[in-house]
């Protein structure tokens, strides 16, 4: 049964990937266009972009992390997901429109234009490390799901998951990711809502009263706080605030998230994509956390010892075989989508920010050459990502800790966009905050101000804001904000164009 479901779940993804690839090939042959591997020709409709924005940040952190975390922090775990709504607002309102207008593809490139070549170098290093480490975490998520259901070792399960993850993006790049994500987003919702119904039926068949029995379990066990929006004071202090800030302020600095928005047809369509991506991502959190909490209240699932393994138990034992296959397929799809998009994004940074500016042989590439190098780096990232995947601890906490390194970059980016660009302020702020984050991680100093637990983001926010603003204000060499300079240059460009075309403007 487990093997059947696992193989079915993997085939579910392979079949969708191959069907989409065949459609893309037929369409490309008919239209006779050369494929843009990185940005899909920047001609993707808003609903496919919305699905990719939603699914790129919905991966192992949700499937394995939230189900496990839900046992400790209950309903309040949703703040991890609600923070993604803030991310999408910032992405679609402040980031993607300006990247499109400025014809910039990567975040390090933008940071380099703001704060100079040295900052570009440290930003590229940070982004490659961040993207690659997240690919490793996603691989770990794949291994947990596959190894949890079969007799495969975690290493073997990682390799199987990694191969399908590469397939998700390797064949046709961004276009494939966008359309596979759209199909998967729809199927994920249908399948997972059905699982919630079957959980209710299962509990009723066991002599209970559906979800009421699950709610009653937490109340009778003295864990009523797990059913409240902010949890207990302890949960609010050690999980909700830190996690919300970490996610809301740092996920914007994910190249994968940005790159998922850039292929949109035009800037106005980002508005619709934003409204669709917010509920598409967040409401899935409700489903997955509910499943995790149900696993705690149902003895068979609880006996597995964790929310993530408990949810696998529920998928296998409360659903008919066809639904078990679909739910495992949907879980794998969620993780695979992040794996694929982050591999593509990290490969894009390597090609655009290292190969193109620093190597003469690859300075000017055709789309075909660019696709070759991006594919090459995707393979390298996936192989090395799988290799280290098994040495990473708890996914949810590891993700939350890792992304805090991006908060100083986000704060400096906002200062550089909206106010002034100071290379000195950027470099000092980012390096100081990163060193502080390491010190807090390996010492007990955070407890001195009662901010132990997953609260690194609070320190990062406070120190990067303070240092970033003060150092930028006192730096006499600081340039005006990049938006101010862009708009001045654009106005001059439009004025000249208007004169040369006899007063006729764009279009």
């Amino acid at each position, binding site marked *: 049964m487990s093997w059947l479901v696992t193989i079915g779940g993997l085939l579910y993804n392979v079949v969708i990937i191959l069907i989409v690839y065949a459609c893309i090939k037929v369409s490309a042959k008919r239209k006779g266009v050369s494929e843009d591997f990185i940005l899909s020709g*920047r*001609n993707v409709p808003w609903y496919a972009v919305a699905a990719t924005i939603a699914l790129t940040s919905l991966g192992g952190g949700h499937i394995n992390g939230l189900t496990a975390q839900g046992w400790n922090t209950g*309903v*309040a775990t*949703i703040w991890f*997901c*609600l923070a993604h*709504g*803030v991310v*999408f*607002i910032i992405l679609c*309102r*402040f980031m993607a*429109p300006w990247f*499109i*207008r*400025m*014809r910039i593809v990567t975040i390090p490139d933008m940071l380099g*234009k703001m704060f100079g070549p040295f900052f570009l170098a440290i930003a590229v290093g940070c982004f490659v490390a961040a993207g690659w480490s997240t690919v490793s975490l996603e691989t770990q998520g794949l291994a947990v799901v596959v190894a949890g259901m079969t007799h495969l070792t975690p290493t073997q399960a990682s390799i199987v998951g990694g191969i399908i993850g590469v397939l998700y993006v390797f064949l046709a790049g961004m276009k494939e990711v966008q359309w596979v994500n759209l199909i998967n987003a729809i199927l994920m919702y249908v399948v997972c809502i059905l699982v*919630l119904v079957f959980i209710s039926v299962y509990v009723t068949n066991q002599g209970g009263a559906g*979800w009421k029995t*699950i*709610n009653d379990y937490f109340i009778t066990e003295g864990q*009523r*706080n797990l*059913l*409240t*929006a*902010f*949890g*207990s*004071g302890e*949960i*609010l202090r050690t999980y909700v605030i830190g996690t919300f800030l970490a996610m809301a302020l740092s996920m914007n600095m994910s190249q994968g998230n940005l790159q998922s928005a850039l292929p949109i*047809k*035009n*800037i*106005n369509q980002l*508005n619709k994509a*934003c*409204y669709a991506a*917010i*509920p598409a991502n*967040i*409401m899935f959190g*409700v*489903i997955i*956390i*509910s499943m995790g*909490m*149900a696993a705690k209240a149902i003895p068979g699932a609880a006996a597995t010892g964790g929310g993530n393994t408990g949810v696998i138990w529920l998928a296998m034992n409360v659903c008919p075989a066809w639904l078990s296959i679909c739910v495992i397929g949907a879980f794998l799809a969620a993780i695979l989508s992040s794996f694929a998009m982050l591999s593509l994004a990290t490969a894009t940074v390597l090609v655009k920010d290292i190969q193109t500016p620093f190597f003469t042989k690859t300075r000017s590439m055709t789309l075909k050459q660019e696709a070759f190098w991006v594919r090459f780096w995707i393979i390298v990232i996936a192989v090395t990502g799988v290799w280290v995947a098994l040495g990473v601890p708890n996914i949810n906490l590891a993700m939350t800790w890792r992304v805090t390194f991006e908060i100083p970059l986000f704060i400096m980016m906002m200062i550089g966009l909206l106010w002034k660009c100071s290379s000195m302020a950027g470099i000092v702020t980012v390096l100081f905050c990163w060193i502080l984050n390491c010190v807090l991680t390996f010492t007990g100093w955070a407890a001195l101000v009662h901010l132990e637990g997953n609260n690194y983001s609070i320190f990062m926010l406070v120190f990067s804001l303070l240092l970033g603003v003060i150092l930028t204000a006192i730096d006499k060499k600081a340039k005006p904000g990049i938006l101010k*300079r862009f*708009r001045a*240059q*654009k106005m001059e*460009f439009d004025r000249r*164009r208007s004169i040369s075309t006899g007063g006729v*403007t*764009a*279009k």
Partner: protein
Amino acid sequence: MGPFCSLPWGFAIFTAIVCLIECLVAAILWKTMYHDEEDSLSFDERPYFEFKND
């Protein structure tokens, strides 16, 4: 702390309300952010303008 959210419907309703608030914030920001007439043009249709970082 906070409102009681029974599984799964109370939880879904609470989350949907916060989602709506976030969409409302997104709508306000969209109204107040910078726009130009080229926002409705596709990337290929936009007049080629290269930002000079000086």
